[in-house]
């Protein structure tokens, strides 16, 4: 056998290649099984970027399904609560061009928190069933109230309310949320000091 092969160098090369192919194939096959990734890591990363308001404005029942849809090639501009920032982050992650927000799905609004006018609440529990993050507290025939810190401002509780007693209150900037804004380019007067350079020259 060996003699036969040594007589035909072409055959030897062929056998060697087939052998190598088989070995590496087996190795890859083993690795594919042994190091199999569970779930869809891209969808997880996308889901991490989405704002998790679970508002359904994108047309999907929650952020996770939309993340999966994006992973399967859906447009990245259907999330109004996330707005520009989310689109940019998604574009970075997926290495695509950022596109403007699709107005069809809503506009980027100031973050709001649901507020139940408690005098008018009849205790129907409809908003409780609608809330995707269990941020409404109450029971049948009891007054309901929103846990403001858990509310995502998704609007989903407003529609089901039979007495229309839920307001979406935009969150105004306060001392805790206030922060410096980027200076406008070319604006003369900026409220940061650190610029008595001319004084120095005069001095």
């Amino acid at each position, binding site marked *: 056998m060996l003699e036969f092969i040594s007589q035909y160098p072409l055959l030897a090369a062929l056998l060697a290649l087939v052998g190598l192919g088989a070995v590496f194939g087996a190795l890859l096959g083993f690795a594919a099984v042994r190091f199999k990734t569970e779930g869809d890591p891209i969808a997880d990363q996308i889901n991490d970027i989405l704002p998790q308001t679970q508002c359904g404005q994108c047309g999907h029942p*929650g952020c996770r399904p939309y993340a999966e849809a994006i992973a399967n090639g859906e447009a990245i501009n259907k999330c109004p609560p996330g707005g520009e920032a989310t689109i940019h982050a998604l574009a970075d992650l997926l290495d695509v061009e950022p596109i403007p927000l699709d107005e069809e799905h809503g506009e980027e609004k100031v973050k709001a928190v649901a507020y139940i006018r408690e005098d008018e609440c009849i205790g129907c529990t409809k908003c409780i069933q609608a809330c995707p993050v269990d941020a409404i507290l109450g029971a049948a025939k009891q007054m309901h109230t929103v846990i403001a810190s858990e509310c995502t401002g998704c609007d989903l509780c407003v529609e089901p309310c039979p007495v229309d007693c839920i307001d979406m209150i935009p969150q105004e*900037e306060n*001392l805790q949320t206030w*922060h*410096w804004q980027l200076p406008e380019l*070319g*604006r003369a007067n*900026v*409220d940061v000091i650190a610029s*008595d350079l001319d004084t120095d020259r005069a001095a």
Partner: protein
Amino acid sequence: MRKIFDFHGGIHPPENKRQSLGEPIRDAGIPGQLVIPLSQHIGAPSAPIVAVGERVLKGQVIAEAGGFVSVPQHAPSSGTVIAIEERPIPHPSGFRAPCVVIECDGRDEWLPHTGIDNYPGVSPSELLEHIREAGIAGMGGAGFPAAVKLRQKPGATVDTLIINGTECEPYITADDALMRERAADIIAGAEILRHIVGPAETLIGVEDNKPEGIAALRAAAGDSGIEVVEFPTKYPSGGEKQLIEILTGKQVPSGGLPADIGVVCQNLGTTVAVRDAILDGRPLISRITTITGEAVAHPGNYEVLLGTPISHLLELAGYDATRNNRLVMGGPMMGFTLTDTAAPVVKTTNCLLAPTEAELPTPPPAQACIRCGLCAEACPASLLPQQLFWFARGKEYEKLEEHNLFDCIECGACSWACPSQIPLVQYYRASKAEILQQRRDHDKSEQSRLRFEARQERLAREAEEKEAKRAARKKAAELKARQAATGAENEDPIQAAIERAKAKKAAQQQAAGSESEVDKLEQAVVTASKRLQTATAKLEQARAEGSDLVDALQTGVDKTRAKLEKAEQALADHRAAQGNGGALSTGAEAAPVDAAQAAIEKARAARAADADLSPRDKARKQLESLQQRLAKSEKRLADSRNAGEEDKIVEALEASVERLRDKIAATETELATHAAAENH
């Protein structure tokens, strides 16, 4: 002589300190109203514990700490609480915030207070508690609660305690004034801090532009072991990390704290406040504030009660609003523009700067970055301000973090050095805030995601439980039904017996109450005759109209007549039978006889009825019965086919169906001939 180190970068802006050092510290007095913001420090706002209308004494706690990283607030003078409401506060946003407003009575009546006589005999943790209760927050500018900063992690050792007397920002001289006039208090405070922290060495760092202060401190320190270290003036050597590097040569790691390298740093003003709290029992209710700038007539340092409206101070100093272009709280490098002079002096107000336009001109519009690199040379944190600027403009937050934006101390050296007057620090502040906001949003969204998932899980679980319950109910019902079915089979003999008994009873009753039977039969006769009448009427009408339905109606009439006759017969028979039965026997035995008799009579009647029928009707009747049989046979055949029975059986059934069809055909022809015959 101690070895002095240097830090990277730094600038040398004009100092402008002598204007405010001409006179000693003056008392700003008691204003008409004191406005105490509940949040003058870093951390949770304090919670007010006084009510509107309550009289408070000087030094009384009016708001307690709102958390671990928080401090209480005290009444700076005696008076009445007239409001707890939102008031303008010194903050770059210009927002209002909750404040306790005290109407002063001018008597300045102290709450009884005493210091700790022998503090070296008191444990550090107890002293820290006193410092916390005295409401002391860092007085250098940031306002971090002093007690929290001084508290050491278990097991950690402190090599160096540094008292920061650098005061590197231009214009500000509050600490310098303290050094000149209250050097002994500073040293006493440093001793207390040394007792609390227990460092190997205690240093007081002072820039060499304060020779009088240094001399006073050295004289006061004597041989206490507290070293007053003098080093060259450079901005921003007063930054905590920069000062540590100057004095020890060690750098605080990025994102770390001085405690990580065994250093604790406290501001000079804070040190004096600690001394007052421990030795005199006096909480933090006043501070030294520099008022300076060319727009004030009497610049200098004032001892101000916290909560004093800035307008009151400005008035004292001879402020000329017309000459002032903007009012700044803090120094010219790191301060911010005040929007409202009604805002009060707070624990961090080290300076009020009222410059003229010529003194501190409005910054000209920013020019384009020429990449000169002066900012990088000036940066004391060894960052790349130019790169950070580009990333900030492009909102590339990840890159900003990679370039250590959070190590920026916002000293403003880069902005000062920039030949294009780009407000660089502004970009970094905004970007930092934006990144923090994003982190908060991300945390919030993470929380929302967890809640959403928990809810989904719960809903799925509830649906599953419901389904399981439903299935269990179904199963139970099935079981019950089966039990009932098997029970019925088991009980069959009994049931049958019951049925038999019932039947017997019914028969007896029938025999006993034959009257009702007779009634029934009579009734049947009546209905039948009625039907016959209507049917005949209809037939007459049809005939008159020459309708096609005549034949069908005729048949109907015939049938009804037959029924009537049958009913009459049955009635007659019954009456006869009753008469016989009554004569022969009574009781149960009579019934079978009656029944047999009735059957015979019935059969007879049927035959008689048949005999009465015309041949055509006979044929029709036969046809009907044949058709019924055919339907039955066909059904049977279909069933057999479906059931997949043997071919023989199916064939046989098919044959019988065929036969029946033939018969039907024959009968139909017969019927047709009869009909033809009748018509003729």
